[in-house]
């Protein structure tokens, strides 16, 4: 066979390969060229009838031809595969403007009061406060007596305090044994001091109840109590603690506060605390946020501790009020309305867990 003939074969096959439009036709060319009965395989079969020196040279030439055609086939196959994929993809088109569902993590909500409680827990935990709890149904002993609120105090009247059946002041029950819905979280102070040796640092959140219902009052609301008892804590510490809390809670570097003398039966000295509304972006007015003071020596003694040795402070904050102030919620009553529209708007996403590192609000 002549080298010229091999060149012809090469040219012809290369032309056929280039002319293929589909992978199927390309495979036909491969069979005709390299298949058992293909042209290049036919050339190999001629080797047996050749003289040894001729055979070597011819063999090398045919092998070279084979390699070259295989390469061309591979290249063309690659091109055609890509083209066919492109053709297929061109037909596979989704309307990606169709809406999707966001899934439960986007639908669920945490109630603002729960969220703010988590924020407050973070802040006070950092100042070494644990979280104490007490029951909603209290005795008048814990809710009033031991807090130095005498039985003729107006707060103990039926128009202020919810009594459980058979426990009204007019009912024949011994004072101290009457069951009331706690009117504040302060009885948790009593429970904590009775059950724990100082030093004590706790906050106590929870539901409280007062017989009151109008635009700005609901018969149930939330408070957070704070209590510190040890041998050294004084009014200056109370101020620091409240200032640090307000800065962290309202997420501002500075907060202007005003401390006013006041009166509560269970603290002495007592003070009310106002925050400059600049903390919530409304400078120029004072917002009353909490009542506080040094725990009254009688209260400390009522819990079996020696008021000459132990002292400390207590404060009580309206949790709902803080929530409303911080997040601009206008109406207290909505907190308890379970209105989906309200909760979706003012509620928090489940993944928005407040931490000191990430910040309180998102």
């Amino acid at each position, binding site marked *: 066979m002549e080298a010229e003939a091999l060149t012809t074969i090469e040219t012809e096959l290369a032309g056929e390969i280039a002319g293929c439009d589909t992978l199927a036709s390309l495979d036909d060319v491969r069979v005709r060229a390299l298949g058992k009965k293909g042209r290049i395989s036919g050339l190999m079969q001629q080797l047996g009838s050749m003289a040894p020196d001729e055979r070597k040279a011819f063999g090398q030439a045919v092998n070279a031809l084979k390699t070259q055609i295989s390469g061309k086939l591979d290249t063309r196959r690659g091109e055609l595969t890509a083209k066919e994929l492109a053709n297929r993809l061109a037909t596979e088109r989704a309307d990606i403007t169709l809406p999707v569902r966001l899934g439960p993590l986007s639908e669920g909500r945490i109630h603002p009061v729960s969220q703010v409680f988590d924020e407050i827990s973070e802040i006070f935990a950092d100042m070494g406060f644990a979280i104490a709890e007490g029951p909603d149904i209290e005795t008048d002993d814990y809710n009033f007596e031991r807090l130095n609120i005498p039985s003729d105090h107006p707060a103990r009247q039926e128009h202020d305090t*919810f009594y459980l059946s058979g426990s009204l002041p007019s009912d024949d029950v011994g004072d101290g044994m009457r069951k009331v819905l706690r009117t504040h979280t302060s009885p948790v102070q009593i429970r904590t001091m009775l059950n724990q040796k100082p030093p004590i640092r706790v906050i106590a959140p929870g539901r409280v109840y007062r017989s009151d219902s109008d635009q700005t009052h609901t018969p149930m609301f939330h408070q957070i109590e704070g209590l510190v008892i040890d041998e050294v804590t004084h009014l200056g510490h109370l101020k620091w603690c409240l*200032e640090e809390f307000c800065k962290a809670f309202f997420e501002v570097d500075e907060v202007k506060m005003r401390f*006013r003398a006041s*009166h509560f039966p269970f603290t002495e000295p007592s003070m009310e605390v106002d925050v400059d509304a600049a903390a919530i972006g409304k400078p120029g007015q004072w917002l009353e946020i909490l009542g506080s003071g040094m725990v009254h020596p009688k209260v400390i003694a009522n819990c079996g501790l020696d008021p000459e040795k132990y002292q400390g402070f207590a404060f009580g904050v309206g949790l709902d009020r803080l929530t409303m102030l911080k997040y601009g919620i206008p109406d207290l009553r909505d907190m308890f309305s379970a209105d989906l529209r309200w*909760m979706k708007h003012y509620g928090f996403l489940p993944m928005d867990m407040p931490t000191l590192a990430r910040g309180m609000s998102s």
Partner: protein
Amino acid sequence: MKFTLSWLKDHLDTDASLETIEKTLSSIGLEVEGIEDPSNALGVFTIARIVEAKQHPDADRLQVCQVEIKPGEPTVEVVCGAPNAKPGLVGVFGPIGSYIPGTGITLEKRPVRGIDSNGMMLSERELELSEDHDGIIELDTALADCVGQKYIDVAGLNDPVIEIAITPNRPDCTGVRGVARDLAAAGVGTLKPEPTLKHTVEGDFDCPVDIQLEFSSQAADACPVFAGRYVRGVQNKPAPSWMQQRLKAAGLRPISSLVDMTNYVSLDRGRPLHVYDADKLQGHIRARLGKAGEKFEALDNKTYVSGDEMCVIADDSGPLGFGGIIGGESTSCTPETTNVLIECAYFDPSRTATTGRKAGVITDARYRFERGVDPDFVVPGLDLGTEWVLELCGGTASKAKIAGAAPSGGTVISFDYGKVQRLTGVDIPASEGKRILEAIGCEVTDNGPQWKVTTPPWRPDVHGAADLVEEVIRIYGLDNVPAVPMKRSHGVTRAVLTDGQRRARRARRTLAGRGLVEAVTWSFIPQEQAEHFGGGAEQLKLANPISVELSTMRPGLLAGLLVAAQRNRNRGFDDVALFELGQAYLDDTPKGQMQLASGVRVGRSQLTGSGRDWRGDAVTADAFDVKADAAALLSALGLDVAKVQVTRDAPAWFHPGRSGVIRLGPKMVLAHFGEVHPATLKLLDIDGPTTAFEIFLHALPPEKRKGRARAALDVSDLLPVRRDFAFVVDKETDAGAIVRAATGADKALISGVNVFDVFEGKALGEDKKSIAIEVTLQPSTKTLTDAEIDKVSEKVIAAVQKATGATIRG
């Protein structure tokens, strides 16, 4: 309490600004609730004189006036419609730009029928001084000298009204003098000396009305002293205008001198008095306990019934009024009154409060007696009252008649001054501490480490060392207390939450993470609902609920949530998924308070979304959706849900056939779930299918935390093998029984059993169903041979057959 600045200055010598006074009052515990400063609204108006008044050329009813508004300067032209405008009239002028409070208009310079008016002459109504609008204000022509001066100054109206809130411990500040004393202590001026009486109040004839205290020894403290004085020949004219103005500023309506002066002394000194028309008294006057059923008509023209624990003032005819609270109509003073008896008594604070509350009367007298008036000021108070009667009404006073004796006021306190620093952290010099205590009326003996402090009789609230610390720091100023950092016990904050608190936190976010929205509903619900949900015991009913809707402590959270869900449906939200985490009550003890996490899914509210969707509408939530919520939460809280039992005995508010109880062992109930019973839906007026779950967080076993390191991971590289089995069983057979049997067939090899098909059809028979399971075999040492797999399969079939009587489906 309301008083005016000039009234305060009767007792306080100060040139402090109103702002300083306001700030100090709030700081020392007399919180300022408001200040009405007339100069804000009226300060712009001045005295002016009409020099000339001519008919307006184009308007019959208008005059064009030349008005002198500044002495010696040219007049300005003012158009005026008032009929009384005339030359020489001295009135009140409003310049251009001033806001007229009575009309709400700001004056602009503009022509009135073609003639420019450079301001306005004003009527009383325009200044909101009265309703008088018949004409412009006509002042005394002698005031022409005051042209150009501020009207409020000339008319004596420039007297800001200060309103303060008084905490219940401060009877002394129910009188202006007490407020002045506190301000002086805080450095705002000096307290003026007690004014001396102008009249000789002690007469030379005996009081013709006898006064007696008729109490048993147990009730003697109800009214320990009753002082009285008779004044003959009084004339009960209207009180002078300055007194009327002050009473009006304080919010009281002037009536007559005799009434007004008692109110004035009450406001001025915190000392209530009463004046009887002595000619209307029958026999002698006495203080005693009421007799049940006694009635009298009080000054407010209401009839009150006395109880036998109430202190009444009576004469021979019966009770006249409640002691320390309200007087009687029958002996009240009128303009015709000529002879009077002045009462100045002391009434027990606690009894006064109780009586007032039971009778439902709130008066200025009660407000003071229930806080505790100064017991040492009974006779001086009587004298002061007599002084005012003589001053305003004339007459001749008798000698005082005093029944009983005043209780002793003031306490002696042994005071370690070091307590001030110990409790406040501030080192206030002892001299300053002493000054403060003396300024509020204490007598201080400080020769030694323990001071002897005698408190003033007008401060019944101060009786211990802590009270004295409070007084010192209150006056020193709480704003002056430096903030001191609390000691940190650890460099890095320690975790503080209890197990229960951790659980609550995780539960809340797990449920919200499942698409449920957190609600907070009332802890009290209607009794009927409480009973339906297994509660409503007598001890959990409120004795004084605010309404029947909020009457009984809830036994669970579902009633509130279901009703809330329906409210949302009524607003057009068909698919509602709510949860609440909160307390419910088994009984009235602390242990009876449970902590629950409960939720409802109403309509098509699915985990993946609700309602219609182009990829397939959500289906109506069923028992398995809420079972998934319950199981997912229990799992999140560390429970192995493969180990819990699910039983069919859910409580009655669930659908009996489509609900379950998740429990650990026979006694420990962790959760209820399922469709809500149609009867429950009917009771709560809820439409449409509704599902719910309730999880008893307080019942969960304590968390087991064995160190932080996890157990070593034990996984095999060998491929798991899966085999499917379809069993035909009776319809009543629980799938759970099949899964349990299959799982236990070869504990070493079987790593999982999953139900992938449940089928009921006629081909199987009416009372049969088919349950198909996929069993996963996980070899651990070598690949399983076919023979080994067959052997396990046989074990599975045998176990399921044994447990349930199933047949393998061909």
